[in-house]
């Protein structure tokens, strides 16, 4: 594709966009959210599509407007929007308003899918795998490595490959198999997460096959029970609950330790 149309984007440009997408949230703010990072990642495409400096700067300023989505899947949006901008530069696409509409549609849809896959599923799954490995091999960095690999391999693959994918499919990227593929990922990760979590809890109860003292098992069970009750409500946050337990534990230690 990159060699057919006079202004079509080179593979190197798409790669540079993927690389710059790593700074998508560098200047994240409440007003424009990822707007500035989006413009920074989009700049290589505009440089190629708009050789006239004034025109390019005007487009770049447009792209600093509000944008927000799940940061990993933002690469797909970058690629699809680059395709839309390419059409626009040829006079075949719409105007600034239609580009804003396209970005808004891509952002909200990919956020809905990406939050569920990367934040609600893959991130807790990677953490569970990492904690299990760290508990089973307490000396060495295997747990940290497992956590990092389980998350980063799909994350970075999508970040770099997503731009080319979005660019190849264009705005139609959302109507293809993407949704079904991501939904299947969420389902499988949740099931696998249940399995890994079960193994991790079993290991916490009897590390290396030696059951821990009954007081420790009771504390684990109490934590699990209270955790399941408090998880039904978003507030107070788990950290506040954990801090409250910490303060309570300190008071008990001071009160009863002789």
């Amino acid at each position, binding site marked *: 594709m990159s060699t057919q149309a006079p202004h079509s984007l080179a593979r190197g440009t798409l790669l540079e966009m993927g690389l710059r997408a790593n700074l998508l949230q560098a200047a994240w*703010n*409440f007003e424009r959210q990822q707007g500035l990072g989006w413009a920074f990642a989009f700049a290589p495409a505009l440089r190629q599509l708009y050789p006239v400096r004034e025109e390019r700067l005007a487009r770049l300023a447009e792209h*600093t407007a509000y944008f927000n989505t799940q940061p990993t899947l933002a690469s797909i949006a970058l690629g699809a929007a680059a395709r839309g901008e390419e059409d626009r530069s040829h006079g075949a696409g719409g105007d600034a308003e239609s580009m804003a509409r396209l970005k808004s549609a891509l952002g909200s849809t990919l956020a809905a899918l990406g939050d569920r896959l990367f934040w609600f599923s893959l991130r807790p799954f990677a953490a569970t795998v990492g904690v299990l490995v*760290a508990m089973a091999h307490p000396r060495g960095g295997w747990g940290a490595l497992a*956590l990092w690999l389980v998350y980063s391999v799909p994350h970075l693959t999508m970040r770099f490959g997503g731009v080319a994918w979005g660019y190849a499919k264009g705005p139609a990227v959302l109507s293809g198999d993407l949704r079904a593929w991501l939904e299947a990922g969420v389902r499988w990760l949740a099931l696998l*997460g*249940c399995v890994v979590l079960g193994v991790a809890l079993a290991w916490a109860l009897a590390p290396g096959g030696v059951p821990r003292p009954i007081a420790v098992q009771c504390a684990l069970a109490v934590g699990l029970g209270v955790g*399941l009750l408090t998880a039904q409500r978003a507030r107070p946050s*788990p950290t506040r609950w954990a801090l409250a337990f910490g303060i309570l534990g300190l008071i008990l230690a001071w009160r009863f330790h002789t």
Partner: protein
Amino acid sequence: MTAAGIGTLVVGGLAALDGTPVAQTLASQPLVTATLLGALWGDWSTALAVGVVLQILAASTLPIGARTPEDYSVGGVVGAGVALTIAAGAPFEHVRQAASLAGVLAGMTAASLGVPLLRWQRRWNEGLARWCEGELRAGRERALAESQWAAVLLAFAIGLAVTALWLSLAHAGARMVYRESLRLAGAWHLLQPLWLGFGFAQLLHAFVQRRLERAGVFAAALVGAWLVIVAGAP
């Protein structure tokens, strides 16, 4: 300051970058940073004891939409750093356990106090974005890259400064932790499994999502793994 202390500050700055501004690869998660610090200080067990507890809690803290979540990137480094600073050179196991407790509490507190700091940073970025757009309209194309790097530099500096502040507090409070180490170690024996169970519950809730078959899969995995682990033990 020792080389390990300086290394901890740098890891604090880098973790602040990976948390939100750069790459978001989860290299800033407490388990990963605690492992790095464990290697740096030569004390795996203290670092991982803190890292595992903070990791379990961090896993249920999610940066969805415009929400500003607890900052476990810097909190994780603070937690392991405080514990390692206190435990450095301590000859007794109960002092290291007391240090782990102090580390986890410091990590959670730093993560919570990081929320207003992150909000301030994000408001500062609003000004940066407005400045950048103005500069672009005035014809300065480089303003975009400059504003990105300014935001990155600020995040690194904040991560490093917060870690430095907590490490100095750890130095100042180490004597008190030594003095009360028996009580704190007792509290650690109670709190560590409590926090683990609590964190497991948050993860279980995230995976099960009120679906009965997933709860069944979890229960089967728990019982099966327990039997295999206990029966397979020498």
